[in-house]
């Protein structure tokens, strides 16, 4: 198995495209860092002394608005108001300033949108890893070894997962290092505050970022698995890339449109990929819980894997 993984890894890193992907990833982060740095040096550092007064005023307005127009609000709006007020009060109580100067952690958080690109690149690799062998004709030489087909496919899937984990780790560490150099590491890191079930919860910034990365990666992970499935079942990398990328960008939007009208939208994959909704905001459809989403994700995952392995095992290699 280790040998198979080495083979797959070698095939990925012997191609120029892989380095282009890594280069692009680092390039995006660098450009962003440069842009923020440039803006920061232009503006003035916000005055930190009077922040308590600011929050008090903000909370007063918010409470007033909530009382006056609360009845016309959608549940999401109501939730966002309540959350802002609660966090404001918590800040006053525990003396946590919101006007933290821009630091490495802020940058890591800002740069985390590049995860979308990690997703894109992982999909491209996943889409190609089985289909390319068919295109190149090398699948014939691969399947006449004394190794069961399931094992060959498994090694390819594991390679895809390792590859996207590597990109994520690279993104995290590169933006941390770059952020550290450009924006400095603050002596005392202010914690991250979030509002859940009527309570304000305090987590350290580092843990928050790891959770953020982890939960954001679920979407990436599921779509990569789907691309892999299409690649193995249909032997067509363009279809796998096209469909997966389309769903990556459009899936969420379409699902929330469906969700406005129909309840069954909660069974759609994309209603469940964003687990952040249970931590930060209200779920897409009332009644959905973290447990429900996790079960749905597992069902989808098993379905994708079953299709991929079943078709790959049964396939007559005739091309």
């Amino acid at each position, binding site marked *: 198995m280790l040998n198979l993984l080495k*083979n797959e890894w*070698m*095939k990925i890193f012997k191609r120029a495209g892989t380095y282009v992907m890594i280069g692009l990833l680092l390039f995006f982060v660098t450009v962003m860092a440069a842009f923020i740095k440039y803006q920061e040096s232009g503006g003035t550092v916000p005055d930190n002394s009077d922040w308590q007064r600011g929050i008090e005023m903000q909370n007063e307005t918010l409470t007033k608005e909530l009382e006056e127009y609360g009845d016309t609000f959608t549940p999401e709006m109501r939730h966002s108001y309540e959350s802002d007020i609660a966090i404001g009060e918590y800040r006053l109580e525990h003396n946590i300033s919101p006007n933290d100067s821009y630091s490495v952690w802020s940058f890591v958080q800002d740069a985390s949108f590049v995860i979308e690109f990690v997703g894109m690149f992982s999909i491209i690799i996943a889409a190609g890893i089985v289909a390319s062998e068919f295109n*190149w004709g090398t699948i*014939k*030489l*691969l399947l*006449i*070894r*004394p190794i069961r087909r399931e094992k060959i496919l498994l090694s390819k899937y594991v390679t895809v997962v390792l590859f996207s984990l590597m990109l994520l780790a690279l993104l995290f560490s590169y933006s941390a290092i770059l952020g550290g150099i450009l924006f400095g590491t603050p002596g005392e890191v202010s914690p991250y505050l979030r509002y859940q079930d009527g309570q304000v919860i305090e987590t350290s910034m580092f843990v928050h970022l790891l959770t953020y990365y982890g939960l954001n990666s679920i979407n990436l992970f599921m779509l990569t698995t789907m691309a892999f499935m299409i690649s193995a079942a249909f032997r067509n990398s363009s279809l796998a890339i096209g469909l997966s990328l389309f769903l990556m960008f459009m899936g969420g939007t379409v699902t929330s449109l469906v969700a406005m009208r129909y309840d069954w939208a909660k069974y759609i994959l994309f209603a469940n990929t964003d687990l952040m909704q249970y931590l930060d905001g209200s779920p897409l459809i009332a009644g959905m819980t973290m447990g429900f989403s996790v079960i749905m994700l597992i069902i989808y995952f098993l379905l994708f894997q079953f299709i991929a392995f079943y078709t790959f095992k049964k396939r007559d290699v005739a091309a």
Partner: protein
Amino acid sequence: MENFVEIQNVSKVIKGRKIIDSLSFEVKSGEVFGFLGPNGAGKTTTIRMIAGLIGITSGDIQILGSSVKTNFEEAIQHVGAIVENPEMYKFMSGYQNLVHFGRMSKGVTKEKIMETVEFVGLKDRIHDKVKTYSLGMRQRLGLAQCLLHDPKILILDEPTNGLDPSGIREIRDHIRKLAREKGMAVIVSSHLLSEMEMMCDRIGIIQQGKLVDVQLVHDVIQTGEKQFELEAEPANAAVELLKQQYPESSIALSDKNISIVILKEEVPNIISMLVQNDIKIYGLKEVSKTLEDRFLEITAKKGE
């Protein structure tokens, strides 16, 4: 001699159509078995079934006593194969390709890889990328790839496809050498009939998914009477004489050449007879009946 490969009553049905119909034959150690048939007869399908690329609908294939169907890993570890053109990873060097495939079998060492590279004569270019290789070099790399794990059975689907004459000769010599020296059982398919004649010990002829005939190469070509071509002057007089002498033989005249089908033992008699009748003889040569002629004969007969 031991049977290395046994095809037992194998059939393949694709979408309700019987592509291969109860095929049975066996290949022994040290033997080169040729697989011959018109396009679409099922040569490649059969070869792919032996290599495990295509499933078997009914029947079984045994390799050294292990079934490809139920004991794939055990059976296939003794097999080295090139199925059609050996497609390699073009973005990697020949050596990296061999390392890649070597890792997939047990006990392939670096020394073994280099030894194989030397055997197929690719030593100078092995570290270049495969995309810079000529077709002949790719074919040699393909051969190296299937010899890495010292297989006992070699399966080659159209191994000489697209090669120039020297490349064809090289592959042919390698195949003969491997069968003789290492006692491998080799299964070759080719559409080049003259090639098969020079390469194989036994030839199976397949038509419409059925094995029509299995013959020793020697038998396929040998039949008692042979065709000879005679250049003589005056030709008409010669034909007259021959017809008188051998009324039951087929004698024909085209341009200056007379063709005659006759037992080899009669040749000296013909010459002395013609010379005695003042006919000038410029040449007499045997026109060997090619495998192609025999092949067409057999397939035409059985096809009726």
